[in-house]
């Protein structure tokens, strides 16, 4: 792998940028691998990368039915934070945030992690109480988090409407300064390039059509590009988790829903933190290009269509305009939808399945992007050792049988 730097950029400028290497190869699939990772999103690529880097398992294929990073990795609002209520979640997301903090250097690919702070607004006494409970728990878990008074919020975000006459005035907020945003595509590409450098085969346009089992354990996958054998198969396919699980005869507690997001036309930067509000249902940040990046709510029905209703988007825009009245004349430039895999407790499932050698990592719902490297890191561990890492052990599928759910509906920050 040729390293990227200002010097390589200058060197290539001399040759008119005609000598850049491929960021990753496009190999044909081999008949077999040690591990097949199904799903070439951020989580799948991170799994492959950490399998190679942390566990020395490099005979790995990542199978992607379309183009890598084309699912939720390339469709989210790029927010990164670890301010989750329950210990289990806090530690998992914090692991991810710490990996993110070194990821640009680790991958030699600038993912543009911008730790500009994530502000969660409180609009009622109930909000304030829940927010303080979360902040206190986070601090004792060693995760940076603070409560801001209304005046502090106003100083931090002068364009925010905190007025008392608003329908839902701002009473205060929590902030995680280490939270922020990263360039979502770059995360996928950087991981792909680094995994590829370790020898991982990234195979695009290769859809898995069946999961082969022999004597109760997994034997490989059937794909649109032929049979690929592997003693271990890890599935990380977000919205399509149920479809893959059905191929292996496994039931999941997951429903797939459309989740929309939108960006405005670029305007000169005026919003320098990520702002989230559960009560009016909005979250918004401003990208380095100047676009306002906004997340909408999920549509209530199951869908695989990557398409949602216009009224859902309108509600989000209304909420953003309520919080930021100066955005009234800014225009929405693009809206889009993804498919999120939602678990009943708004926490993911990461671990083994009843089929030996088959592992699932799914159910990230509306919050998967922030978990990308952490998810891959623990999933790689789970696959390599055939047992979960302590960080992801609580996120096993059997929690739905025991009832030990990790209810993070509050931490979604907005009521999806």
């Amino acid at each position, binding site marked *: 792998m040729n390293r990227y730097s200002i010097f390589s950029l200058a060197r290539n400028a001399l040759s008119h940028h005609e000598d850049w290497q491929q960021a990753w190869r496009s190999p044909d699939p081999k008949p077999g691998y040690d591990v097949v990772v199904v799903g070439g999103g951020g989580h799948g690529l991170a799994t492959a990368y950490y399998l190679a880097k942390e566990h020395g398992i490099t005979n790995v294929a990542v199978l992607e039915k379309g183009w890598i990073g084309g699912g939720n990795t390339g469709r989210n609002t790029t927010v990164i934070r670890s301010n989750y209520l329950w210990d289990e979640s806090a530690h998992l997301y914090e692991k991810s945030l710490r990996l993110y903090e070194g990821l640009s250097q680790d991958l030699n690919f600038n993912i543009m992690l911008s730790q500009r702070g994530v502000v969660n607004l409180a609009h009622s006494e109930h909000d304030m109480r829940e927010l303080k409970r979360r902040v206190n728990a986070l601090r004792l878990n060693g995760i940076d988090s603070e409560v801001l008074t209304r005046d502090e919020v106003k100083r931090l975000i002068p364009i925010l409407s905190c007025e008392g006459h608003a329908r839902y005035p701002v009473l205060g907020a929590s902030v995680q300064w280490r939270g922020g945003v990263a360039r979502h595509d770059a995360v996928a590409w950087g991981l792909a390039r680094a995994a590829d450098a370790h020898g991982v085969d990234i195979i695009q346009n290769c859809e898995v059509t069946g999961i082969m089992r022999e004597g109760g354990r997994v034997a490989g996958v059937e794909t649109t590009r032929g049979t690929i054998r592997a003693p271990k198969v890890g599935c990380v396919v977000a919205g399509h988790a*149920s479809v893959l699980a059905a191929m292996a005869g496994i039931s999941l507690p997951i429903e797939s829903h459309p989740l929309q997001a939108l960006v405005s036309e670029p305007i000169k930067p005026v919003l320098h933190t990520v702002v989230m509000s559960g009560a009016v249902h909005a979250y918004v940040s401003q990208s380095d290009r100047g676009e306002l990046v906004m997340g909408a709510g999920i549509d209530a029905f*199951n869908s695989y269509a990557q398409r949602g209703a216009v009224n859902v988007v309108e509600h989000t825009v209304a909420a953003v305009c309520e919080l930021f009245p100066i955005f009234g004349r800014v225009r929405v430039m693009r809206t889009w939808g993804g498919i999120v895999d939602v678990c009943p407790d708004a926490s993911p499932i990461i671990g083994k399945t009843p089929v030996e050698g088959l592992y699932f990592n799914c159910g990230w719902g509306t919050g998967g992007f922030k978990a990308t490297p952490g998810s891959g890191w623990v999933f790689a561990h789970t696959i390599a050792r055939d047992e979960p890492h302590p960080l992801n052990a609580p996120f096993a599928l059997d929690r739905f049988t025991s009832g030990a759910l990790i209810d993070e509906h509050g931490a979604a920050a907005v009521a999806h």
Partner: protein
Amino acid sequence: MLLITCPWCGPRAELEFRCGGEAHIARPADAMNISDADYARYLFMRKNPKGWHYERWNHAAGCRRWFNALRHTATHEIRATYKPGDRKPEPPR
């Protein structure tokens, strides 16, 4: 936004409805004598198919009745809506 035909009121905008998720999940009659795993199946496990899906809707801002629908989760086509107790329509082949 979907256009949903309430079996009692006729076609109405999705705004008037609330989605109730997968249909035809029977509440276990003898719940106390089934395993935790079987109970978890009832509580949490969902088919979530990519394709035809039986689901429940409530005409919340209308007649407030619950009913079922057969809808395609990739195209959003609604093939049928039907009252509770009515026979389940077959999905198109």
